[in-house]
């Protein structure tokens, strides 16, 4: 299940969705809004999504994770809207019989989602200026082979 959420959501309820008796491992990742990026003090973040295609691409990533790793379940939810420092921006949870597959799949899903899903982030800085991340006029389009850090 891949979802775009315009409202804050509760990770505990998502984790309950994943619960099942065969699972011996649950790995989760939370992406939080942090107070700095590349030397600038960040005050808040705006996320915007092209929702129909974001959900399709997100579901493709989850299906790929199921093909690559021995998973039992996988969920990813990404926020849109204006988020404050410390807010939960993205949540990934996966379950598997064993921890290796769960760790690997969780990493795969968040890395691919950051590189491929049509979601954009605008940083609001302490100076009052703003910037769309990755939208500099030079450079490559983000691909799974050229991931920015973070």
């Amino acid at each position, binding site marked *: 299940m891949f979802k775009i959420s315009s409202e804050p959501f509760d990770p505990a309820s998502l984790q309950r969705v994943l619960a099942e008796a065969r699972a011996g491992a649950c790995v989760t990742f939370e992406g939080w809004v942090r107070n700095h990026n590349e030397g600038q003090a960040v005050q808040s973040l705006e996320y915007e999504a092209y929702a129909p295609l974001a959900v399709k691409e997100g579901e493709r990533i989850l299906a790929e994770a199921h093909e690559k790793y021995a998973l039992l379940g996988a969920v990813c939810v990404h926020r849109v809207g204006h988020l404050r420092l410390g807010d939960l921006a993205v949540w990934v949870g996966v379950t598997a019989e064993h921890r290796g597959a769960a760790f690997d799949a969780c990493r795969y899903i968040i890395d691919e989602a950051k590189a491929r899903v049509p979601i954009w982030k605008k940083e609001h800085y302490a100076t009052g200026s703003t910037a769309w991340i990755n939208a500099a*006029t030079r450079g490559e*389009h983000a691909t799974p082979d050229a991931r920015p850090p973070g």
Partner: protein
Amino acid sequence: MTISVQYFAILREQRGLTEERLNTAATTPAALYEELKARHAFSLPSNRIRAAINDEFVAPTALLREGDRVVFIPPVAGG
């Protein structure tokens, strides 16, 4: 040919609206982007933009058809 175009993120801000219908002689997303980039002074070069037609990624050289809904996708930055 009449096409609808939806804008997101930096393109939405530079165009000043979220959606428009327009008549164009462009036959591909790449040609349509160049036309709109010239008209609205979009900052991103075409090699940094991906295209979608009717909610699916397409090649920049895909053929546009009457009534298609086109989205130009700036470099993504989720997470």
